[in-house]
Structures are given as structure tokens and as C-alpha cells.
């Protein structure tokens, strides 16, 4: 799983969010490292929706434009947990991930 994908899924852990809120939350969770561009976000959301990891939860009109909120599906939560555990394990072996990513992973990992 690539880092932006990971943080998009992680940002939805506390409940559904709309586009810009996902960008903000992902930035916060990654300690400011992952600043998603809008184009990147929606490409990822399209893919994650198609894979069944994310679903459309709510649609509302804000300032005359549609605003959609996306939520994590059970398979999405499972994939996120598996990835967090994998990253936490890679900290134990000391390979593969940057310390910041692992710190974020530990925040999210149940272990």
C-alpha cells in the first residue's frame, strides 16, 4: 500500500469525511508530511471505491456544489489494520519504513 493511500484510509478511521477534510486529516496524521493534492485524492478515492475499501456515505450541497463524504468499509478497515501491523512489525526489524510513518502506524495499530 502506498503512503497516500494509507493515510487516506487512516483519516477515515474516526468516521466519514469529505474531500478537503481528508486532506487536512491525512496531513495531521502524517505530521505534515503527506499533503495530498486534490487530483491525487480523487484518483485514490476512485480506486479505493472500486476496490470496496471506501464508500460514499453522504451527499450534500454546499455553496451550490455537491460535497460528498466518504467512509471506511469493513474490508477497508481490515486492509488498514493489516498495513499498520505490517509497518509496526517492520519497525521491530528496523527496516523498510521511515520513523515518522512507523510512529503514525503505532498510533493506529491496536497492538
Amino acid at each position, binding site marked *: 500500500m502506498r503512503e497516500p493511500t494509507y493515510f487516506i484510509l487512516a483519516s477515515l478511521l474516526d468516521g466519514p469525511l469529505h474531500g478537503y477534510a481528508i486532506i487536512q486529516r491525512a496531513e495531521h496524521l502524517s505530521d505534515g508530511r503527506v499533503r495530498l493534492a486534490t487530483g*491525487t485524492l480523487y484518483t485514490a478515492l476512485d480506486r479505493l471505491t472500486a476496490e470496496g475499501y471506501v464508500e460514499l456515505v453522504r451527499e450534500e450541497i454546499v455553496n451550490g456544489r455537491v460535497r460528498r463524504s466518504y467512509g471506511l468499509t469493513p474490508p477497508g478497515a481490515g486492509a488498514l489494520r493489516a498495513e499498520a501491523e505490517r509497518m509496526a512489525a517492520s519497525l521491530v526489524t528496523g527496516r523498510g519504513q521511515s520513523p515518522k510513518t512507523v510512529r503514525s502506524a503505532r498510533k493506529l495499530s491496536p497492538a
Partner: protein
Amino acid sequence: MSALQRHCGWLLRAYPAWYRRDRAGEMLGTLLEASPPGARWPSFGEARALVIGALRVRGRTWLLSMLWVVIGAGGAIYATVTITHIGYGEGFRWMFQWPEEPQVIIDVAVIAEVAWLLLSVPLLVAGFVRLRGWRRRNWLRVAGWAGSWVAGLALMSQAAERAAAGEGGTRGVLSVGEMAICAAWLVLGGAMTWILSSPQTQADSSSASKVAIR
């Protein structure tokens, strides 16, 4: 409408129409929220991500098809200029060249021509595959496209034939009618490009909105 909104709208036009119908409003909202207050243009990173995202949505076949049209158009201009203004050099039967043409231009032209010919086959197949899943009447369009493709190839070879006949520095003859048909051929290639950028399945065209709202 603010300048930022207008400029973001321009960039969003990189996405195909079917995608924009579903997503443009939502993406514009996010872009405006993500841009710092007072900004007139989206940041370079945002612009780049939008273009890359648009290319992903349009797909590889679309990109190759565009390449085919661009190379074809460039080749047509090159051939026209060479035939009508410069005349032909000796040699290559299938390539228009002028006397003492720099080697680098010859090399680029040969590579482009080979790439163009090689690209046309998978694109033709891709077009067939894509249209087939659509509606029955599209078979007519497929037949039209394939027919014009064969006709265009025949015309090009005829033009090359005449070029070879006019060897020795004389100017060749290429009628306006032939050039018009070549142009129509390229326009059809462009139309095919448009078809190739349409969603592969009906479900794709509204993937987000089709998902059940909880």
C-alpha cells in the same frame, strides 16, 4: 466567479466530460478549500496532480491514440511541405526527404513513421473492443473507421509512389483531394481517440454516484 475558480475550471477540463459531469463540482469545491486565501492560481503541485489524474482517467489507450493523431498530423504537414515546396531526394521509397536533409531529421522521421504504423494496429483493435460493448449501431462506425483507415493507408502509399516517380529533385504531385482525404483520416483518428476516452463500462461513468448511500 473568482479568478481561482475560473483557473481551476480550466484545469478540470483535462478530465473527460463523462467524469466531469459526476465529479467536477465536488473537485472544484475541494480545490478552492485547499488553496490559500487570495490565491489566483492553484499551486503547481495541484495542477500537476490534476493533469496526471486526468490522464489516468482517460487511460493508456487514449494517450496512445492521441500520440497516433499527433504523429500522423505532424507527418502529414511534413509530407505536404516536402512534396509541394522542396521536392524529393534520391533514395527512400517510403520516406519523403529533401536533398541534403540533416540525418537527425531523417532519423526522427523514420522512428515516428515506424511508431505510427505500429501504433495503428493495437489502436484499431482497442477501438473495436471498446465499441463492441457499446451499442449495435456502433458497428457501422467501426466499419467506417476501419474503412477510412485502409483508404488512408492506400492513399499514403499512392502519394509515396508518386514521390518515387518524381525522383531526381522534381516536385511531386499531390492533389488537394488526396490531402483532404488524409485530413479526414486524421479527424477520424481523433474521433476514435474521443471514443477511447469514454468509460469502459456503464458502471464506470457514475461509479461514485451509483454507490448506495447508507
